[in-house]
């Protein structure tokens, strides 16, 4: 058995353990202790019986292991170095489960890492700075904190980022960190005069904070156990609100009936706001009648109704199926991916979006919510009743714009324009390339841009061709 002395923390352990590993000395042959060689009476006797290390053999360990070991070394426990060496030994000999939470050593390693990270997080959360008078000079803000593990070094960057050029000091029982507003210095051990300063500084804002804390607490929901679980009682004595926790909980448990209001608020004189109902009502622009349409139930899940858009004198009107996800949010037709595809196809057919009237057969977005990560918003095809319920709005647009040519983008639009009673029996293919004179205007059928987006390969090319043909045909008919 031989004793290894760790003098300067993790780096020291790392250096020595590398040599031991290379010398092939197994964990059970070692005792680890903090301090300098020679401070242990038995150390000499235990001696270097491992002999001189053999020729160095390269040790290969996973890249993430050193960082894990470093973190676990901050856990205060008698066997901290021994556990690290056991893990290192096993992993270096090919047993990677020694790093994993399911393993006995790995489980303990991971548990310590979690504890250390949690303690660092606690420190970032529960350190409380108090302000010193400007006349006393730097540092302006000081804090006293008692972490359970060696985590001070882990949190200094956090406070440098938070406090900018303000100088600060965090003192703990065994170390201190001091910032001059640019960088932080670690002092080990903590100079007693800094510890005294950090512990004795008081500050008026504590009182304001206690007022806030009491008020933001909801006594009707008192659950002291839960609070303690999240914020261990060992931190309370250094928190300004610490003195309140037990008192507020006890008062809340005693009072009947349970009230949500803070006691300090209940004591004050109340006041109703004197205003008549009419004046209180917010002035909203009068909703368009389309906005308030309740002819079918689609409005319920939609953000808003999407009216058509374009010049009221356009000779060409494009009718789509219904607004999609983006259109539903913005309240404008064909602005999403399908709209962009349509714009490109219009340009290719020498048409300008600004000169055509663009609308949909159904004005509210029909969709279905479903599980999934992230939760789904699935498009659904409107049924015959919904198309019929929305037809008056389409008729109104047709009557206003009076286009000579209407392009029906997809089967739903075609069914709406031709007043088909059962859209599912309509075959778009039967109408492609065959404009039909209907109710005093040309109706040209085309595939919907969204169908093109969903398709691939030769099918996609065919659909694009069909849309392009339809648009060119529509342009010609409009010019006639």
């Amino acid at each position: 058995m031989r004793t290894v002395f760790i003098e300067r923390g993790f780096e020291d352990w790392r250096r020595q353990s590398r040599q031991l590993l290379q010398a092939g000395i197994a964990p059970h042959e070692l005792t680890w202790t903090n301090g300098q060689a020679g401070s242990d009476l038995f150390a000499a006797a235990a001696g270097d019986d491992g002999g001189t290390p053999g020729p160095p053999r390269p040790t290969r360990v996973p890249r993430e292991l050193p960082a894990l070991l470093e973190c676990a070394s901050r856990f205060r426990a008698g066997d901290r170095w021994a556990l690290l060496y056991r893990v290192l030994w096993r992993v270096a000999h090919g047993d990677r489960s020694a790093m994993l939470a399911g393993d006995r050593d790995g489980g303990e390693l991971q548990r310590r890492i979690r504890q250390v990270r949690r303690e660092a997080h606690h420190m970032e959360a529960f350190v409380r700075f108090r302000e010193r008078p400007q006349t006393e000079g730097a540092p302006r803000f000081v804090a006293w904190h008692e972490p359970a593990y060696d985590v001070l070094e882990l949190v200094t960057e956090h406070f440098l980022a938070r406090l900018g050029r303000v100088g600060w000091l965090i003192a703990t029982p065994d170390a201190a960190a001091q910032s001059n507003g640019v960088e932080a210095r670690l002092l080990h051990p903590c100079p007693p005069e800094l510890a005294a300063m950090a512990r004795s500084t008081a500050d008026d804002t504590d009182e304001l904070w206690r007022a806030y804390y009491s008020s933001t607490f909801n006594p009707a929901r008192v659950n002291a156990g839960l609070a303690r679980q999240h914020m261990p009682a060992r931190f309370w004595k250094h928190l300004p609100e610490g003195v309140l926790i037990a008192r507020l909980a006890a008062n809340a448990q005693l009072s009947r009936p349970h009230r949500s209001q803070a006691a300090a608020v209940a004591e004050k004189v109340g006041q109703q706001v004197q205003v008549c109902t009419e004046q209180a009502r917010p002035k909203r622009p009068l909703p368009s009648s389309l906005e308030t349409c309740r002819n079918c139930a689609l409005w319920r899940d939609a953000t808003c109704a999407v009216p058509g858009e374009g010049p009221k004198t356009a000779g060409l009107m494009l009718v789509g199926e219904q607004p999609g996800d983006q259109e539903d949010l913005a309240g404008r037709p064909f602005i999403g991916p399908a709209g962009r595809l349509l714009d490109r196809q219009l340009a290719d057919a020498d048409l300008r979006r600004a000169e055509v009237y663009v609308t949909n057969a159904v004005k509210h977005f029909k969709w279905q919510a479903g599980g999934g990560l992230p939760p789904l918003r699935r498009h659904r095809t409107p049924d015959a009743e919904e198309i019929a319920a929305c037809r008056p709005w389409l008729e109104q647009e047709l009557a206003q714009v009076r286009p000579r040519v209407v392009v029906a983008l997809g089967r739903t639009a075609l069914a709406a324009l031709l007043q088909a009673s059962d859209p599912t029996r309509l075959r778009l293919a039967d109408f492609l390339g065959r404009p039909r004179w209907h109710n005093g205007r040309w109706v040209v059928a085309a595939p919907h841009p969204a169908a093109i987006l969903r398709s691939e390969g030769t099918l996609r090319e065919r659909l694009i061709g069909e849309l392009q043909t339809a648009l060119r045909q529509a342009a010609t008919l409009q010019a006639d």
Partner: protein
Amino acid sequence: MDLTDKLIVLADAAKYDVSCASSGAPLRSSKGREGLGASNGAGICHSFTPDGRCVSLLKVLLTNFCLYDCQYCVNRRSSDVPRARFTPDEVVRLTLDFYRRNLVSGLFLSSGIIRSADYTMEQLVGVARLLRKTHAFRGYIHLKTIPDAAPELIAEAGLYADRLSVNIELPTESGLERLAPEKNGQSIRRAMGRIRLGVEESGDEPRAPRFAPAGQSTQMIVGADPTDDHTILDTAQRLYGAYSLRRVYYSAFSPIPQSPGSVPRQAPPLLREHRLYQADFLMRGYGFGAAELLPAPGNLPLDIDPKLAWALNHREQFPVDLNRAEAMLIARVPGIGVRNAKRLVQLRRERRIRYEDLVRLRCPMDKLRAFVVVQDYRPPHGDLETGLLRRALADSPKTQLALW
């Protein structure tokens, strides 16, 4: 009224908004720079009040004077509560003072509606502008968005705020009409739609100014009207799908001083709120659909958690062989979370999973035992009748009391 009195009134008035998250903000640092504050995506709870809630932000109303008469709200115009109003500078001072002392990670500012929606929103945006522009504050800002406010104001709010939120308030449109006559479901949805578009536009364009980088959230009040959990979860799922919300918060209705007759005198059980949060977490983190968790109208069971309830209704999918099943299915086993599912998959790449491994991962074995198969274990009562199993696994009334 001095500052302390205002703080007492306006913190009390704001606490019914349960969100206090400070997570999701981009990386910002004041290291060596003028100004104050940092954010890094992870939130920090700087304290916990004795109700077990996290205190992460200074959560106050700018004022609790309010024109509206929402029946469930303590600040409604007909309520006899003390009223106060902060000046923008007072809110700024409190935020910075608390921030420097590491008491909070930022500000959550909301307000009663005064004069008009636009005026109120301007006041809120004004405070955020002061913090960001005048004081170079880089901490977290959550702004409540007034749904009827002009789109330009919402756009400016998104420039300063990490998170915006519009409260849906009640799960149904009819509930809103009855209890919050001045509010309007349509304008709430439109505001949420604008925020989602703003977030996505700035996300698509790397050089565009940031817009609410921590996204948006909302809050629903539970138990102020008779709506059941089925409808609540369905509404939540639709909101997640349509507006990419980061969170839906559920707030159990608290009877307030001089409650009007239109709302219940009794608070709903807090356990109901807890079950809704569990179900919500299963929707956000596990891909469960609302209809899977609660296929029929009614409420979630109080005696067992929603994942266990789902598993008991789907015995045919169990027991799951942890050495073979996909990670997504392992995470659906009661008592195994996403994190442990990941750990198990990692471990089984090295060797077969054994019973002892589950114990070491601190899985609740009593709950788990009937649902899993591992190398050296399979459930002896694989066919234990579901009713009996449920009775064995239900939270006893004693543990429920301890929880709440």
